[in-house]
């Protein structure tokens, strides 16, 4: 008889586990309901959350497709591009300055030229 009771007890264990799982599911349902009550229904997560013609931006806001494309282009743009151009321009200016410096005759050269011109 004791053996039968032990077997019955062992077979009851899964039922206890099932009840625990059920209780867990009910608690999860309550948490879901609480969370859902505080949901932000205006924020989008998918493009299909938005009205037709709109897409969901990276900021979870529905925007017009062209705006999203522009925003995407801006995000994709190389932020160092402008700085590179400025550096290139400065290099060009420096090259011009060097050329101008090279083009300026030195006093010795001017004197030499004058001496050549003065020579009979």
């Amino acid at each position, binding site marked *: *008889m004791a053996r*039968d009771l032990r077997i*019955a007890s062992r*077979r009851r*264990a*899964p*039922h206890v*586990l*099932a009840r625990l*799982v*059920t209780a*867990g*599911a009910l608690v*999860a*349902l309550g948490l*879901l309901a609480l*969370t*859902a009550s*505080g*949901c*932000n*229904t205006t*924020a*989008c*997560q*998918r*493009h*299909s*959350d938005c009205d037709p013609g709109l*897409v*969901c*931006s*990276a*900021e*979870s806001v529905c925007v017009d497709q062209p705006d999203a494309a522009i925003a*995407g282009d801006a*995000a994709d743009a190389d932020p160092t591009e402008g700085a590179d151009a400025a550096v290139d321009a400065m290099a060009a200016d420096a090259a011009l300055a060097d050329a101008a410096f090279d083009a300026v005759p030195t006093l010795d050269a001017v004197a030499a030229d004058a001496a050549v011109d003065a020579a009979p």
Partner: protein
Amino acid sequence: MILATLGGTAQADGVAAKADELPLWDAELRFGYGVSVGGGQGMTTTRTSPLTITAVGAVALSYEPALAGWGGLVVETLDRTAVGATAGIRFTPMLRKIRLSAGGVALVAPYTLYGGTAAAGTCFGLGDVGLRACADVQMTAYFAGDDLAPGSAITQVQLVLGVAFDGP
């Protein structure tokens, strides 16, 4: 009285043993609803998930451990309409009193979403006709697809209620 109690226990165990048998196949219709958490680029949004209706069939792969492979169709509805497919593996330890599932899900129309899903739950027999009522807590993570906002991922936590029919 003790004998009567033991007799009742034995009879109940007989029914339980029958319910505990792993069927060769089963079919199930599930309804899932919960919350959806989206995140990306440092911000998180929470909103109610779509109502997910899933029709799946499962085939036993092994008796010990109790494994079954499952697959079927997924439909999302309420504030949208999307269809796709899902498949995975189910483990039913503890004499089928609990079940643990894992798999993948793909929504393919009108937009695409790809992700993984995991669930834990239990089922209760409904009479002696092979029907069971099931309840699961399911988590699904979508991490790819053209329906996702740029740079984001979505995690859904749903309570899933279903009715399953056991084959032979």
